[in-house]
C-alpha cells in the first residue's frame, strides 16, 4: 500500500467499525440509548466521509445507506429491532472485508459494486418508500474518482468493458431499436457464488431462463491464473445478459439468484456501436448541414427523409453509412431523444461518435448548495470567487443586519478581492461596509456585492494567476508537509499511531541490547584474570552498571508502549455472545468490567482463544435455556460477566456465569467413563479436584459435541495456552449457582527471569517462576521410598529427580558432597531436582527453538549468555 492516506484510513475505519458494532449491540438491548445511536451514527458517518477520498465507490455507497438508516433511527422515524441490527451488522462486516481487501490490494474486489447495490437496496427498503427516489444519488461518491461516465450510475447500467464488441452488430442494433422505441432494455449482471456448483446451481442454465434475451456475454470474474492453480469446482464466471424483458419477468426467472444479480436499464446511447470503413466527400458535408438545420427546427420527418435518401446511395460497408442506420433507428421512436439524434447526426457528419456531445458540464467542484452565478465558465478560480461572494450575499440576506455577522463577511469579501487583486472593488466594498455599520443595515453591502457579482468577470488588474493544474494526485511518502514550517508553540499531538511491527522491531532490538550488555561482566572478568588489570575491570563494571540501568529503563518504556487494554479482546465478545445465544436459543446478558486493564500485547493476543473457549463453554454447557432457568426459579436471562483487573504483577481475568454450575458427581462419572481416571482415584478426589478434571486432556462432559465448543479441543487447551504464557487457570463452581473461571497472567512476558544451573557438565536455564527454593540436602537425608528417591523438607515428602537423567545424560558422580536440590512447583506438585550446582540468576529474552529443533520437547527456548554461549532454557512441565 503506497498511499499513506489510505494507510491512515484503514486502521481508522476498523476502529470505527468496531465502535459501530458494539454501539449497535447496546442499541439492540436498549433501543432508546441516545448515546449509543449518536456514537454509531457518527462512526458510520466518519467512515463515509473519509472513504470518499478513495476509489471505493461501492464501500461509500453501502456505508451511506447504513448512515441514512441510522439517521432515521436517530430521529426516531424508525424503530430499531434485531433484524435491523442484523442487517446493519452484516453491512459493517462487509465493509470490514472490503477494508481488508483495500489493505491487501488497494482496491475493492470486482464484485463490490454488485454487493453494495444489493445490500444498500436491502437497507433502503427499511427506509420506506418516500425516500426511494433520491436513493442512488450518492453525493459524496460522485466526487470520488470514477469512470468517465458523468451520469449517476445508480439507475443506469454501465456496460462491462468490451461488452458491445463481443456482440454481433445486428444484436446491438436490435437492442438499440427497442430501447429507442421506449421498451426498456435491461442489463442483467449475474455473479454466481463461487461455490454455486455445490448447491446444484447451473449458472448458465439459470441465466438462459431469462426471457427476451438479446445478447449474452460470459467472462471470467477474476483472471484465470496458472492452470495448475485452477479449481474447476469454483465458479469463476460473470454473466452479462442484455434483455428486452421487463424487470418483474427477469426477477421471476432469476428468483433463486436474486442476491447475486443486478438489473439495470441500459441507455440507448450506450448501445451504439458503429463499425466500417472511413469515407469522406461532399455528400456527407451536405448531409450534415441539412440534417443540422432539420434538427434545429425539430423537423424530424424531413430528417428521416434525408437519412433514407443518403442511406440508399452510400455503400453499406462505410462507417458513416452505418451511423445512418443507427440514426434511422433512433428516429424511428415515437419521441426521438434529441441529444441522441444530435449525437448521431454529428457522427454521420463527422465520422466520429461522441455519445454525449452537448452534455451538461459534469458536476463541477463548485459547492452544490451555493447559488451558481453567471455563466462565464472560463476560469474555475473566478467561478469559485463568485460562489464565495454569493455565499456572503446569501448569509447576510439570511441573517439581516447583525454587526457581528458583518465582521467575518467583511474579512471574507476583502480577502477574496485581495486574492484576486481587485483593489478598486475592495475599496468600494470597504466603503459599503462602513455605510452598513452606520446605517445599521446590510443593504449597502448587499448592493455593493451584487454590483461586484454582476460586473465584469472578477479579473485581476494584471494577469490572472493560473490555477494549479492539479495537485499531485497521489500523496507520496514525503514527510508531512506542514512539519518543516510549523511555528513554535505548536501543541504536540497527544497520541501517535504506530505500526505494531515497528514496536516489535524495537522490542527485539532492546532484547539484543539486554543480551549484549551481559557480555560486559565477562569482559571485566577477563580484564582481571587474563590481563591482570583490576583497574580496567572496575571501570568496565562501572560502565556496565550505567548501561544496565539504561537498558532496563528503555525496556520498561518499550514495554509500556506494548501494553494494550484487554478491551482489545473483550470487545469481540458482545457480538459473539449475541450471535451464539441466538443460535442456542438462550437469553444472555453479557457484562464487561475493567476493560481498561492493560497487559503486554503478546499476552493480550494469546488470551483471545482461551477466553473464547471459556465463554463458549459457558454458553454451551454452563448456561441453561430460558425454560430451564425459569423452572429452577432463576431469571430467564442468564448473565456472563467478563472481568479484568490488575493484581500485583499479573492481570487477572474472570469469566463468571450464573448458570447451572459444574456437578462434581457428573464429572467424576464422566471421567471414569472416558477412562480419564480410575474408580478409586475418583473416590479420593475432593469436589474441587473433581471439577479440575475438566482440564484433563480428553475430557468433555457434553453428551454430544456441539458445534460451538466441541471443536475437538477441550478445556485442556485453555490450560496449556495459559500455562505457556506463564499464567494459571482455576475454576470454582457452585452447583445451581454458576461457575467462575479465573485466569491469572503475567503483565508482560517479554523478559523471563531464569536461574542458571549446572547438570551433566553443562549449563541450563530454569525459569524462576517455577522455582520454589534451592536447598542443599546431605546425602544421608535422601531416602528411598520404593524405588524413588525422596527427601523431607519441613515435614513434607518431596520426590527427587535427577535432572541429568531427565535429559538422558550420564550422571556426574558427586561423591559424598551434599546434593544441590532445586525445589520446583510443576503441574501442581512439588518436585526436587537434583543438579550439580546452582549459578546466578539473570533476565533473558527467550527465543523459541527454531527449525528442526521446534519439535524438541522439554525446552522453553534459548538465550545468549554474555560470553556468546547459547543457553538452553528448560520447560520443566514438559520434562517431568
Amino acid at each position, binding site marked *: 500500500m503506497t498511499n499513506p492516506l489510505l494507510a491512515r484510513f484503514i486502521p481508522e475505519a476498523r476502529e470505527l467499525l468496531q465502535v459501530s458494532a458494539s454501539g449497535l449491540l447496546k442499541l439492540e438491548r436498549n433501543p432508546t440509548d441516545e448515546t449509543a445511536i449518536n456514537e454509531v451514527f457518527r462512526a458510520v*458517518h*466518519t467512515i463515509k466521509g473519509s472513504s470518499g477520498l478513495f476509489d471505493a465507490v461501492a464501500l461509500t455507497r453501502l456505508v451511506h445507506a447504513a448512515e441514512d438508516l441510522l439517521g432515521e433511527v436517530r430521529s426516531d422515524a424508525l424503530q430499531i429491532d434485531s433484524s435491523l441490527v442484523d442487517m446493519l451488522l452484516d453491512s459493517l462486516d462487509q465493509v470490514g472485508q472490503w477494508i481488508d481487501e483495500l489493505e491487501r490490494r488497494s482496491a475493492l474486489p470486482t464484485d463490490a459494486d454488485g454487493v453494495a447495490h444489493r445490500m444498500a437496496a436491502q437497507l433502503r427498503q427499511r427506509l420506506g418508500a418516500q425516500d426511494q427516489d433520491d436513493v442512488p444519488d450518492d453525493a*459524496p461518491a460522485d466526487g470520488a474518482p470514477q469512470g468517465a461516465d458523468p451520469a449517476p450510475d445508480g439507475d443506469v447500467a454501465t456496460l462491462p468493458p468490451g461488452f458491445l464488441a463481443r456482440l454481433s452488430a445486428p444484436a446491438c442494433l436490435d437492442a438499440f431499436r427497442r430501447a429507442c422505441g421506449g421498451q426498456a432494455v435491461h442489463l442483467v449482471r449475474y455473479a454466481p457464488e463461487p461455490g454455486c456448483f455445490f448447491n446444484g446451481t447451473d449458472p448458465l442454465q439459470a441465466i438462459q431462463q431469462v426471457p427476451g434475451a438479446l445478447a449474452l456475454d460470459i467472462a471470467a470474474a477474476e483472471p484465470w491464473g496458472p492452470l495448475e492453480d485452477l479449481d474447476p469446482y469454483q465458479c469463476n464466471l460473470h454473466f452479462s445478459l442484455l434483455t428486452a424483458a421487463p424487470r418483474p419477468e427477469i426477477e421471476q426467472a432469476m428468483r433463486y439468484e436474486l442476491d447475486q444479480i443486478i438489473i439495470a436499464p441500459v441507455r440507448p446511447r450506450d448501445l451504439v456501436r458503429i463499425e466500417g470503413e472511413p469515407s469522406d466527400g461532399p455528400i456527407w458535408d451536405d448531409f450534415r448541414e441539412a440534417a443540422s438545420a432539420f434538427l434545429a427546427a425539430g423537423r424530424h420527418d424531413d430528417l428521416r427523409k434525408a437519412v433514407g435518401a443518403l442511406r440508399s446511395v452510400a455503400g453499406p460497408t462505410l462507417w458513416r453509412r452505418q451511423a445512418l442506420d443507427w440514426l434511422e433507428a433512433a428516429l424511428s421512436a415515437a419521441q426521438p431523444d434529441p441529444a441522441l439524434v444530435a449525437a448521431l447526426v454529428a457522427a454521420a457528419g463527422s465520422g466520429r461518435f461522441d455519445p454525449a456531445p452537448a452534455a451538461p458540464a459534469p458536476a463541477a467542484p463548485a459547492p452544490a448548495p451555493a447559488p451558481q452565478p453567471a455563466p462565464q465558465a472560463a476560469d474555475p478560480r473566478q467561478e469559485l470567487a463568485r460562489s*464565495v461572494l454569493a455565499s456572503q450575499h446569501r448569509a447576510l440576506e439570511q441573517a439581516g443586519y447583525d454587526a457581528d455577522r458583518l465582521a467575518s463577511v467583511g474579512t471574507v469579501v476583502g480577502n477574496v478581492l485581495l486574492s484576486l487583486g481587485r483593489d478598486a472593488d475592495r475599496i468600494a466594498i470597504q466603503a459599503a461596509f462602513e455605510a452598513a455599520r452606520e446605517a445599521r443595515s446590510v443593504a449597502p453591502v448587499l448592493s455593493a456585492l451584487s454590483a461586484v457579482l454582476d460586473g465584469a468577470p472578477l479579473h485581476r488588474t494584471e494577469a490572472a494567476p493560473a490555477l494549479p493544474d492539479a495537485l499531485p494526485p497521489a500523496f507520496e511518502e514525503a514527510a508531512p508537509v506542514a512539519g518543516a514550517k510549523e511555528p513554535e508553540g505548536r501543541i504536540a499531538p497527544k497520541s501517535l499511531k504506530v505500526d505494531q511491527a515497528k514496536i516489535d522491531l524495537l522490542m527485539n532490538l532492546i532484547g539484543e541490547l539486554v543480551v549484549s550488555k551481559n557480555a560486559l561482566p565477562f569482559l571485566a572478568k577477563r580484564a582481571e584474570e587474563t590481563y591482570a588489570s583490576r583497574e580496567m575491570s572496575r571501570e568496565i563494571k562501572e560502565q556496565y552498571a550505567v548501561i544496565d540501568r539504561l537498558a532496563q529503563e528503555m525496556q520498561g518504556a518499550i514495554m509500556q508502549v506494548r501494553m494494550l487494554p484487554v478491551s482489545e479482546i473483550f470487545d469481540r465478545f458482545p457480538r459473539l455472545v449475541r450471535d451464539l445465544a441466538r443460535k442456542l436459543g438462550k437469553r444472555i446478558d453479557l457484562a464487561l468490567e475493567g476493560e481498561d486493564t492493560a497487559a503486554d500485547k503478546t499476552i493480550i493476543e494469546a488470551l483471545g482463544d482461551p477466553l473464547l473457549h471459556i465463554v463458549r463453554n459457558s454458553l454451551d454447557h454452563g448456561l441453561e435455556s430460558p425454560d430451564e432457568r425459569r423452572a429452577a426459579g432463576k431469571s430467564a436471562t442468564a448473565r456472563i460477566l467478563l472481568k479484568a483487573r490488575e493484581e500485583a504483577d499479573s492481570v487477572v481475568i474472570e469469566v463468571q456465569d450464573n448458570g447451572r454450575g459444574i456437578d462434581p458427581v457428573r464429572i467424576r462419572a464422566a471421567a471414569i467413563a472416558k477412562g480419564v481416571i480410575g474408580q478409586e482415584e475418583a473416590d479420593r478426589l475432593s469436589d474441587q479436584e473433581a471439577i479440575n478434571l475438566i482440564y484433563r486432556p480428553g475430557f468433555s462432559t457434553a453428551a454430544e459435541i456441539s458445534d460451538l465448543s466441541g471443536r475437538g479441543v477441550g478445556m485442556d487447551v485453555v490450560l496449556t495456552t495459559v500455562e505457556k504464557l506463564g499464567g494459571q487457570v482455576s475454576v470454582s463452581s457452585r452447583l445451581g449457582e454458576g461457575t467462575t473461571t479465573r485466569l491469572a497472567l503475567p503483565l508482560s512476558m517479554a523478559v523471563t527471569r531464569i536461574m542458571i544451573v549446572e547438570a551433566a557438565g553443562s549449563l541450563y536455564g530454569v525459569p524462576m517462576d517455577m522455582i520454589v527454593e534451592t536447598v542443599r540436602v546431605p546425602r544421608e537425608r535422601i531416602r528411598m521410598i520404593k524405588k524413588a528417591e525422596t527427601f523431607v523438607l519441613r515435614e513434607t515428602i518431596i520426590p527427587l529427580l535427577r535432572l541429568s537423567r531427565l535429559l538422558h545424560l550420564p550422571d556426574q558422580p558427586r561423591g559424598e558432597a551434599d546434593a544441590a536440590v532445586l525445589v520446583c512447583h510443576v503441574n501442581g506438585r512439588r518436585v526436587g531436582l537434583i543438579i550439580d550446582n546452582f549459578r546466578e540468576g539473570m533476565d533473558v529474552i527467550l527465543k523459541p527453538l527454531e527449525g528442526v529443533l521446534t519439535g524438541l520437547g522439554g525446552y522453553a527456548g534459548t538465550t545468549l549468555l554474555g560470553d556468546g554461549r547459547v543457553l538452553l532454557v528448560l520447560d520443566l512441565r514438559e520434562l517431568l
Partner: protein
Amino acid sequence: MSGKRILVVEDGITMRMFYQDVLGRAGFVVEEAANGVEGLEKVLLGGFDLMIVDINMPKMDGYELVSRIRREPSLQAIPVVTISTEAKDADASRAYAVGANFYIVKPADPVLLVETARLLTGAQA
C-alpha cells in the same frame, strides 16, 4: 508559501491527514482539532486566518462550534468554512445561519479546497 494559519476541526483522522497534506502542500500552516470542544479551545488561542469546520462531530458539532465562535468578540471576523457530506441546501442554510462564510460538500476536491482557502485568507496563488 502563504504562511496563513488554518485550523481544521474534524473528527476523522484520515480527513485531518488529507487537509494537512493538501493545504500544507499549498503553503498553509495547518493545525488540527479532533472535535468541537478542542476546536473552540484552539481557536480561542488566536492567530488563525481561517477555520475549516466539519459539521458532524462528537462532543460539539460544527453548527454549535460556529455559533459559539461568532458569539466570541475576538472571533467574529475570522472566516469559517463548514464542510459536510450533506449536499442538501437546508444544511448549507443552517450553516450560514449560525455564521459560516462558505459551505463545502465532502469529499472536497483538493483544488477547490486550496483555492477556497486562498480566497478566504486573501492569499496569492
